[in-house]
C-alpha cells in the first residue's frame, strides 16, 4: 500500500503525529518510524493507552493484539502486533496526549467520511494551529 495523500490530524512534535491517508488508514508517526493502522487496531491502541493512564505503575499491560511493557530502566516497549515502538518514560504521556487529542476528529471523520470531511479536518487543524500554536497548544 502506498499513500499519495496524508491529512494531518494531530501533532505533538515535528516527528510525532497522527494522520489519515486516502486508503482510510491511520498513520502514527514517531521519529524514525510510522505505523499504518486500521480503525479497529487504532481503537485497541486507544483502549490500552487509556488503561495505562488508569494504572500508571504497570509493568505490563495487555490489550487486544497490543501490549505495553515497562523495562527495568523505566523505558517502554509498545507492541502493536509483531512490531514495537520504543518510548522513553516521558514519551508515554506524549503519545497518550496525541492519540486522545486525535480521537474525536478521527471518530467524526469515520462517521461522516469522504473528501469534504478530510478537507474540513485539514482546515480545522490549520485554524487551531494558527490560534494556539497547534492542537496541543504551546506544548
Amino acid at each position, binding site marked *: 500500500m*502506498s499513500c499519495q495523500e496524508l491529512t494531518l490530524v494531530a501533532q505533538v512534535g515535528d516527528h510525532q503525529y497522527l*494522520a489519515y491517508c486516502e486508503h482510510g488508514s491511520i498513520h502514527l508517526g514517531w*521519529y524514525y*518510524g510510522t505505523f499504518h493502522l486500521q480503525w479497529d*487496531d487504532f481503537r485497541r491502541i486507544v483502549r490500552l493507552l487509556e488503561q495505562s493512564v488508569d494504572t500508571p505503575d504497570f509493568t505490563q499491560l495487555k490489550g487486544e493484539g497490543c501490549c505495553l511493557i515497562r523495562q527495568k530502566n523505566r523505558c517502554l516497549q509498545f507492541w502493536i502486533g509483531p*512490531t*514495537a515502538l520504543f518510548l522513553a518514560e516521558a514519551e508515554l504521556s506524549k503519545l497518550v496526549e496525541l492519540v486522545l487529542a486525535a480521537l474525536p476528529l478521527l471518530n467524526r471523520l469515520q462517521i461522516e467520511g469522504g473528501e469534504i470531511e478530510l478537507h474540513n479536518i485539514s482546515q480545522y487543524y490549520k485554524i487551531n494551529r494558527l490560534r494556539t500554536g497547534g492542537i496541543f497548544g504551546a506544548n
Partner: protein
Amino acid sequence: MCTQFVPLTKSNDFRYILRCEHGAIYLTWDLVTVYLNLREFEGLARLLDQGTYLAESSKIVEMGCILIYSEQGYYRLWIQNIAISLKPVEFLILADMVRVALKGVQEKQITAPAATPALERFQGYQRTVTASANLSFSIN
C-alpha cells in the same frame, strides 16, 4: 518533504523498500515504515547478513540496529526506535530484500545527501509513492 520515490525492492504490497529524492531509504514491513539514511541502511544490510549465520541465541549490534536471535529461530530486529519480530522465513525474506535494495542503490549510484541528520530527512509526511517496483524482489 519527500515527493519522489524510486522503488528498490518489493516482496508484496506491504513489504517494500523505496528511496526518496533526498536519499533516505523507506523500509516498509507490514504495518510499519522505518526511515534510514544510506549509512544506516548499509549497516542494517551487514547486520542481517551476519544474522543469517547465527546458530545460537545471540544479540548483535550495527549502526543503531540490534538483532536478537532466539534458539527457536525467531528474530527481533530493532531499527532505532522501532522493533520488528520475525519468523525464520520472514527474516530471510527481509534480509534478501535489503540485500537486493542495497545492490540496486550501489548499481544505480543514486547519490545520497552527505551527513544529513537523521531527523531532517523526513520533513514532511505527504508522499507521492510509485506503487509498482521496477526491480524484481530477489536477485537469487
